[in-house]
């Protein structure tokens, strides 16, 4: 037996297949030779001994094969282990290096966490709203169908036009119209509750194709008048109100005082997502009356047939619309229709702002990268001698680059992990703060695809901010670094590289600042818009009287009048009134065509139109609207008395430009009874007020007395001199007194109503503002870092200058100037870029130009001030240099 070799022969880390085969061959030959020798020793002739050795060995050929195969797979395994070991070494070394400079590591990780966290949370919003497909089978087949308004915008269907389209369309396999409603749920062991409902066609659930949690969708014929009343509940309602009771399907619930049979429960994947229940849209005789072809208020959704394309369906919609226009010129003159993918349609309004935010947050990430790259450069110059020594000892350039990259990637991953944690929190905050009208908001969250994005972004940033410093550092000028005193020339190079980085990040920050500044200015303009009513000291809420109980005009009148009377009795209330079409700035989009008595009738499709509201006499004073001329409504304007209307100034200007509207008679395209339409005489003109949004011009509006034209939806406004909270509580009690089954909803102060109406622009402004602030801070840190480093490199020179008589002020000015040069360069580049980039913001701006000079000047000033402050700190330190110490090289 032999000893294990004391000194191992050299062995390559891994072998080729040929080498493996040769090794196996050599091992086996060695064995066979020894056996043969043994046999020769026993007296065998040499040749026979060799043959006998082979014979005794057994199956030599397959042993060869098996051994080769085993060795090759072992070889492969070793390669992996080796690679992992090296990675492990690099990682351990990187962590040790990072731990050695905790301040650097902490700042870098925090900076990255901020960048990655912000990027991730915005991405989670973009992903949830724009990217993720709708949660239905084959979501790309879902489309919205809609007529187009004169302006080419999507508008609404009338029942008959929808039904005609449905009958003629060959490109959809299922379609449904959609109307939203609200119903009162009573009984079922709880307070009366206001629920949001959708009225849909029987085919509705075949359009979505999302399976129900229990029960079935609607069946054909369930929309016919007199059909059994059926309802599908949302899973949330079922859980919340009925405790998720298993036997719910088949049970009866009371909606608006009428019993409905529950036939199904719709799961989380449903549409519209804010809805609590679905009911068939009943095709009553009134709804399909030919006279109502012009009553447009319906949306429609459809699923394309498997063979149809979106283009084909759009072409078909155009054809059908043209046919409808020709067939019914009275109501359908110029009728046009179009289709769009459901997701595209849904996210239409938020797509651009979200993409802008995504772009902005990527800027922040880029700035964070630049800052960390800057830090890495400083560190690299501190490690020059270490790297030079390692290179001198034979470390290859690739090996050093790999090591430095490992460090930056480790740093980025740590920052990314912190960022992901930050993002989970920030995304929740975003969803909570986002305007509630944002589509698909409930689908936003940090999930695996978002985290995958975070991982990719972290790796990407690690390489991005690590590569340049690593390449630079891996190429040290050996002789220069190893020699004494060569520090300054290298240092100056580093300052140059870093200055470029700082100019870049300053420019990026300027773009963000300009964008945020524009949104801020625009928002300020929006807040200064006079809504026309007085939002102070007023509260508002809504009531929806259930239909069978309050079907008759008389009951509605008495409800409105009794309510107003009781509310006016509350101490402190100075005015109270009811309007039939929603609160200003929240809902209420009811336009009506009209004619003026004595003028020729307008041609079909060209009738003048106004927004209309029916109000009780107290409503105008309660909102604080201004009376311009004539009179307001009073208690005498009752049913049976002369019918009267009030116009807003915009209506008076637009439709009575050269005459006094007071005394003129207006014929509404509505309220047809006893052979004529509802007609009222103009008795007053009031100031304009914003009904839809603050940014829209004031629409022409008409008010009619509620008593003369009652309708079943009540919006109450109360003006009070006393505490609004107490008034609200008292009003709630009064409503309960009048009818305990009448739920009250959307109770808020008028100021909240105004504030909610600008929730969207405020949200975008706050986010972009936040990004700009972070960017500015990071840019300031960048400038500070470069100047401080430059000062430390120039200590000796500064000392010499001071020894030669330069004053401290002069030194401060010199250093400050250096910082300002960077700031100016960054600002110039940034303003140029902002000028181009902010064009994308145009659609979000109200009464501010995208190249608003005030904003740009403000941004430039802000930046210069911040830069001056950031360079003042190192400048002051430079000025404190003691010339003697500096000259002796002791600082």
């Amino acid at each position: 037996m032999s000893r294990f070799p004391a000194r191992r022969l050299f062995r390559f880390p891994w072998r080729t297949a040929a080498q493996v085969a040769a090794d196996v061959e050599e091992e086996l030959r060695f064995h066979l030779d020894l056996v043969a020798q043994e046999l020769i020793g026993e007296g065998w002739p040499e040749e026979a001994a060799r043959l006998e050795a082979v014979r005794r060995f057994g199956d030599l050929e397959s042993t060869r094969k098996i051994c080769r195969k085993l060795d090759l797979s072992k070889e492969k395994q070793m390669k992996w282990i080796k690679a992992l070991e090296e990675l492990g070494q690099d990682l351990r070394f990187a962590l040790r290096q990072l731990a050695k400079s905790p301040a650097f590591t902490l700042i870098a990780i925090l900076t990255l966490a901020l960048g990655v966290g912000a990027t991730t949370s915005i991405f989670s919003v973009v992903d949830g709203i724009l990217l993720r497909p709708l949660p239905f089978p084959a979501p790309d087949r879902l489309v919205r169908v809609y007529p187009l308004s004169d302006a080419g915008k999507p508008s609404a269907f009338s029942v008959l036009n929808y039904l005609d389209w449905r009958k003629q369309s060959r490109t959809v396999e299922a379609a449904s119209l959609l109307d939203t409603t609200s119903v009162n749920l009573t009984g079922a062991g709880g307070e009366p509750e206001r629920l949001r409902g959708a009225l849909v066609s029987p085919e509705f659930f075949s359009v979505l194709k999302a399976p129900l949690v229990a029960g079935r969708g609607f069946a054909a014929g369930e929309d016919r008048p007199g059909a059994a009343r059926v309802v599908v509940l949302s899973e949330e309602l079922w859980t919340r109100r009925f405790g998720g009771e298993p036997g719910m399907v088949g049970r009866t619930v009371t909606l608006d005082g009428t019993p409905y049979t529950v036939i199904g429960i719709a799961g989380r994947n449903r549409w519209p997502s804010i809805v609590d229940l679905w009911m068939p849209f009943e095709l009553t005789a009134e709804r399909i009356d030919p006279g109502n072809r012009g009553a447009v208020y319906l949306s429609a959704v459809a699923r394309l047939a498997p063979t149809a394309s979106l283009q084909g369906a759009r072409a078909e919609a155009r054809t059908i619309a043209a046919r409808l226009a020709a067939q019914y010129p009275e109501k359908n003159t110029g009728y046009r229709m179009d289709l769009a993918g459901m997701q595209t349609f849904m996210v239409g309004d938020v797509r651009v702002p979200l993409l802008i935010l995504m772009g902005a947050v990527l800027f922040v990430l880029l700035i964070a990268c630049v800052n960390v790259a800057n830090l890495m450069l400083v560190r690299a110059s501190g490690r020059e001698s270490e790297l030079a020594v390692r290179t001198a000892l034979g470390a290859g350039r690739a090996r050093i680059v790999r090591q430095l990259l490992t460090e930056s990637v480790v740093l980025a991953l740590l920052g990314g992990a912190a960022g992901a944690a930050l993002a989970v929190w920030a995304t929740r905050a975003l969803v909570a703060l986002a305007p509630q009208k944002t589509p698909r908001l409930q689908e936003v969250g940090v999930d695996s695809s978002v985290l995958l994005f975070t991982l990719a972004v972290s790796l990407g940033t690690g390489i991005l901010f690590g590569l340049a410093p690593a390449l630079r550092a891996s190429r040290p000028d050996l002789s220069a670094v190893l020699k004494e005193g060569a520090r300054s020339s290298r240092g100056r190079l580093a300052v140059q590289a870093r200055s470029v980085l700082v100019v870049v990040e300053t420019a990026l920050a300027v773009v963000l600042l300009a964008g945020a500044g524009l949104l801020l200015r625009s928002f300020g303009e929006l807040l200064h818009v006079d809504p026309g009513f007085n939002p102070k000291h007023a509260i508002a809420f809504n009531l929806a009287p259930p239909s069978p109980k309050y079907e008759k005009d008389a009951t509605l009148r008495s409800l409105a009048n009794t309510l107003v009377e009781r509310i006016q009795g509350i101490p402190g209330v100075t005015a109270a009134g009811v309007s039939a079409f929603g609160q200003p700035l929240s809902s209420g989009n009811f336009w009506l065509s009209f004619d003026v008595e004595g003028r020729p009738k307008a041609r079909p499709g060209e009738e003048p139109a106004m927004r209309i509201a029916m109000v009780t006499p107290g409503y105008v004073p309660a909102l604080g609207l201004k009376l311009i001329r004539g009179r307001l409504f009073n208690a005498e304007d009752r049913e049976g008395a002369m019918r009267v209307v009030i116009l807003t100034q915009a209506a008076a200007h637009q439709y009575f430009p050269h005459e006094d509207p007071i005394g003129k008679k207006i014929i509404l395209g509505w309220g047809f009874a006893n052979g004529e339409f509802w007609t009222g005489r103009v008795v007053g003109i009031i100031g304009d007020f914003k009904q839809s949004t603050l940014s829209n011009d004031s629409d022409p509006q008409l008010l009619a007395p509620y008593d003369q034209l009652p309708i079943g939806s009540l919006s109450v406004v109360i003006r009070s001199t006393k505490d609004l909270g107490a008034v609200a509580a008292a009003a709630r009690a009064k409503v309960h007194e009048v009818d305990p089954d009448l739920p009250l909803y959307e109770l808020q102060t008028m100021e909240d109503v105004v504030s909610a109406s600008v929730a969207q622009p405020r949200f975008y402004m706050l986010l972009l503002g936040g990004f700009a602030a972070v960017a500015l801070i990071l840019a300031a840190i960048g400038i500070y870092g470069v100047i401080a480093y430059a000062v430390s490199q120039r200590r000796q020179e500064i000392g010499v200058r001071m020894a030669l008589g330069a004053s401290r002020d002069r030194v401060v000015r010199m250093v400050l100037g250096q910082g300002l040069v960077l700031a100016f360069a960054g600002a110039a580049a940034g303003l140029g870029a902002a000028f181009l980039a902010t064009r994308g913001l145009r659609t979000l701006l109200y009464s501010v130009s995208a190249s608003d000079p005030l904003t740009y000047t403000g941004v430039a000033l802000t930046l210069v001030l911040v830069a001056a402050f950031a360079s003042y700190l190192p400048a002051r330190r430079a000025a404190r240099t003691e010339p003697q110490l500096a000259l002796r090289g002791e600082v």
Partner: protein
Amino acid sequence: MSKTSLDLMQGTVAVLILKTLSWGAMHGYDISRSIRQRSDGALGLEDAALYQALHRLERKGWIEAEWGLSENNRKAKFYRLTDEGRKQLQVEVTTWRQYATAVAKVLETA
């Protein structure tokens, strides 16, 4: 190999090799000779099976190989136990003893 020696079952080869290597590093020829000698010639191991087993054990990481010089100064592949192989040996020995006892018991009662 002697005709009287017992044929060895697959798993047994492994435990014998491991045991043999527990006394020190050896090349294949020595391992084969050593097993024959220690069993007084009762256990004969076919060379083909031995080498296949050696490479299999190396693949598993229980033994490792290195080229060295044999006593007659030829390049030879030496095997020795790894730490993992040493642990495995103990496991296998225990299993083998239990197995042998069980078989013996059955045979005695017959």
